[in-house]
C-alpha cells in the first residue's frame, strides 16, 4: 500500500467525519436551492482545511499536497460543490499569494484566507479566452498610482462570495508569457461588479459568475508579483490545482462506489440481491479498480509535489484520469441503481451531474493530454 503518514491519516479521518456528518446531509438541499455552503466553509476554516498549503507563519496548517489531496477527496465525497470552492481557494489562490505576494498583501489577505474567513477566487477565463488564456483581452492600464481595468471574466468559481479575487489581466502586448499581470480584487472597488450567475448542470451550490470591470480603479498596491508576471502566476498554481481537481474527482468516485455497493446488497430482484448477478459484480469490480487507479495517481502526483519534484505530467495525468474515472463510475452507479439512480432522491444522480465538469475546468482534458504528450516527447528527445 502507498505509505501515508499517521498525521495524514488523522487529517483524512477528520475530514471524512466532517464530510459525512455535515456536508453529505446538506448537499442535496444546497444543490437543489443553489445555496452557497458558507456555514460549512467557516467550520472548515476553523479546522484548518482552508489553509492547508499556507505556511504556519501566516496561520496556515502547512500540511502539504498529500494531506491536502486526502482531505479534499473526503470533502468531495460529502459535497463536490464545497470541494471545488476549497480547491480553488487552497490550490490556486492561497498558493499564488504565498509565492508572489508582498508581506503587506500576505498580512491583509493570506492570513484571513488561511482561517477561511476570506475565500479566494481566481479569474482567468473570458468569454473569448478559455483554453487559450494568452489571448485574453481584459485590460489593465496604469494611471498614476492606479490601474484602470476594463473587461469581462466568465465562469468564475465563488465569484460572488469570494473575499478576494485574483484577476489576470492584460498590461502589455501579446508577447507570449509577458503581457499579463495579476491583481487582487475586492468587491468594494469602484467599477467592479458581479455579473450573471450561471445556471449549471452540477456543482450547483458553488456560484459560477461573470465578473464585470468598467473603468475599475485598482490601487497599484494590489498588483500581485510584478507587471508582466501574470501568466507565470496563473501557471504556478496549476500543479496543485490539477491535483485538487483530481482529488475532488476521486472523492466523487469513492462516494458513487460506496453507494453502489450498499444499494446492490440491499436491492432484490428475481428473488435475490442484485449484487449476486454477475453482470453487476463485474461492473462493481471495474468501478473499484478504476477508483483505486485514480487514487494511486492522485497520491503519486501529490507525493512528487510534496517532495519538491517536477510533477507537471503526473498532475495532468491524475487530473485527466481521475475526472474520466469519476464520469464512468458515477454513470455506472446510476446503472446499478436502476430507475432509482435517475431520481434526485438518491445521491448518485447528483454525483453524476457533479462529475461532468471535472473533465472541463482547470484545463480541459484535451489540454491535459497536450501537456502529457509534450512532457512525454520532451523526455524522449533527451535520451
Amino acid at each position, binding site marked *: 500500500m502507498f505509505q501515508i503518514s499517521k498525521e495524514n491519516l488523522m487529517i483524512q479521518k477528520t475530514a471524512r467525519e466532517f464530510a459525512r456528518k455535515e456536508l453529505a446531509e446538506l448537499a442535496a438541499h444546497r444543490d437543489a436551492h443553489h445555496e452557497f455552503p458558507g456555514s460549512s466553509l467557516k467550520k472548515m476554516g476553523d479546522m484548518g482545511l482552508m489553509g492547508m498549503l499556507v505556511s504556519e507563519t501566516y496561520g496556515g496548517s502547512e500540511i502539504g499536497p498529500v494531506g491536502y489531496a486526502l482531505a479534499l477527496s473526503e470533502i468531495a465525497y460529502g459535497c463536490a460543490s464545497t470541494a471545488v470552492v476549497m480547491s480553488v481557494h487552497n490550490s490556486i489562490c492561497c498558493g499564488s499569494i504565498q509565492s508572489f505576494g508582498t508581506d503587506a498583501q500576505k498580512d491583509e489577505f493570506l492570513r484571513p484566507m488561511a482561517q477561511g474567513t476570506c475565500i479566494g477566487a481566481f479569474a482567468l477565463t473570458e468569454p473569448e479566452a478559455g483554453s487559450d488564456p494568452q489571448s485574453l483581452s481584459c485590460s489593465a492600464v496604469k494611471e498614476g498610482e492606479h490601474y484602470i481595468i476594463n473587461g469581462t471574466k466568465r465562469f468564475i468559481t465563488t465569484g460572488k462570495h469570494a473575499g478576494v479575487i485574483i484577476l489576470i489581466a492584460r498590461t502589455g502586448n501579446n508577447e507570449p508569457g509577458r503581457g499579463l499581470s495579476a491583481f487582487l480584487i475586492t468587491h468594494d472597488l469602484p467599477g467592479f461588479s458581479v455579473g450573471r450567475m450561471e445556471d449549471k448542470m452540477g456543482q450547483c451550490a458553488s456560484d459560477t459568475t461573470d465578473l464585470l470591470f468598467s473603468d475599475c480603479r485598482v490601487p497599484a498596491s494590489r498588483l500581485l508579483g510584478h507587471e508582466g508576471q501574470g501568466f507565470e502566476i496563473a501557471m504556478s498554481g496549476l500543479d496543485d490545482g490539477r491535483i485538487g481537481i483530481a482529488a475532488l474527482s476521486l472523492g466523487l468516485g469513492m462516494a458513487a462506489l460506496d453507494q453502489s455497493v*450498499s444499494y446492490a446488497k*440491499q436491492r432484490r430482484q428475481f428473488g435475490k440481491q442484485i449484487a449476486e448477478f454477475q453482470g453487476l459484480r463485474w461492473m462493481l469490480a471495474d468501478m473499484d479498480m478504476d477508483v483505486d487507479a485514480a487514487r494511486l495517481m492522485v497520491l503519486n502526483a501529490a507525493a512528487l509535489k510534496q517532495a519538491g519534484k517536477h510533477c507537471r505530467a503526473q498532475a495532468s495525468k491524475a487530473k485527466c484520469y481521475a475526472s474520466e474515472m469519476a464520469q464512468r463510475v458515477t454513470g455506472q452507479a446510476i446503472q446499478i441503481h436502476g430507475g432509482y439512480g435517475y431520481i434526485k432522491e438518491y445521491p448518485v444522480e447528483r454525483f453524476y451531474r457533479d462529475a461532468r465538469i471535472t473533465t472541463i475546468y482547470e484545463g480541459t482534458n484535451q489540454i491535459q493530454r497536450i501537456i502529457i504528450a509534450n512532457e512525454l516527447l520532451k523526455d524522449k528527445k533527451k535520451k
Partner: protein
Amino acid sequence: MEILVCVKRVPDSAENEIEMNSEGNDIERDDLVYSVNEWDNYAVEEAIQIVDKVGGTVTVVTVGDEDCDEILRREMAMGAEKGLLLNDDAFAGSDCKGIATILKGAVQKGNYDLVLTGAQADEGAGAVGGMLAAMLDLPYASLVNKIELGEGKLTIGREIEGGNREMNEITLPCVLSIQTGINEPRYVGIRGIRKVSGVEIPELSAADMGIDAASVGEAGAGVKKVDYFVPEKGEGAEMLEGSTDEIIAKLIEILKANGGL
C-alpha cells in the same frame, strides 16, 4: 479542575456494515473501521469546555492495546492535554467490572476532581461508570446532559424517562456518565493533529498500577459472552425498507389504512 475522561475504541457503525462472523459468536471484526465511542466524544468536549472556563487539565484514558493510540491521539487533537494508555496482556477479555478495576488503578495514580465516562458504548449497558464510582467510593450520576460549575460541587441535569429532566447537586470529586446532546463536539482541527502526532503517550501496565492480574481480564471475568446473534424476525412486525422519505410515505399509508390517521 483536573478531569479524567474514560474513552473506548469501538467499531464505527456509521462506516461499517456490522455483520456476524462465521462462528456466529461475535461480529466480523476484519477490516472494521474503528472510532472513538460516540458518547465519550461528548464527555471529552464537556471536559474541554469546563477547563476552558476554569483552567486545569483534561486527561483521556483508555484500556486497550497499541491500536487504541489513535483514539487517544484524536481526543488530544480535539483539545485534551494528556493521554494515558492502560495496556497489559492481562487486561484482555475483561468484563465491565474488570475494566472498572483497571480504570480505578489509573484514577488512583492521579489527582482528579472529576471523572467522566460515556453513558454507554458498543457493548454492555453503561455499567462501567457506576462500578468505577462505587469502587472509588465517589458520588455518581448517570445520563448527565447538563453541567453547571459551583464551589466544590456541580449542578447537573439528568435525562429522565418521558423526556423529563431533573437537576441535582453533586459534590466533587465525583464520577459522571455523559449523555449525547450535552454539547456539540468540535471537529478535530489540523493544528491539533499536528500538535499531537509526535507526542509520546505514556502507558501503564497492571504492575504499574498495582493491579492483581487475576482480578482482571479473562481470568477475573465473572460475566462471559456465550452467544451473539441477530434475533429471528418475530410475527406481527413489519420492517419498512427504503429511504427515509419512502419509509415515511409507507408509514402514512399504513396508518391511514388502519384508521390511525
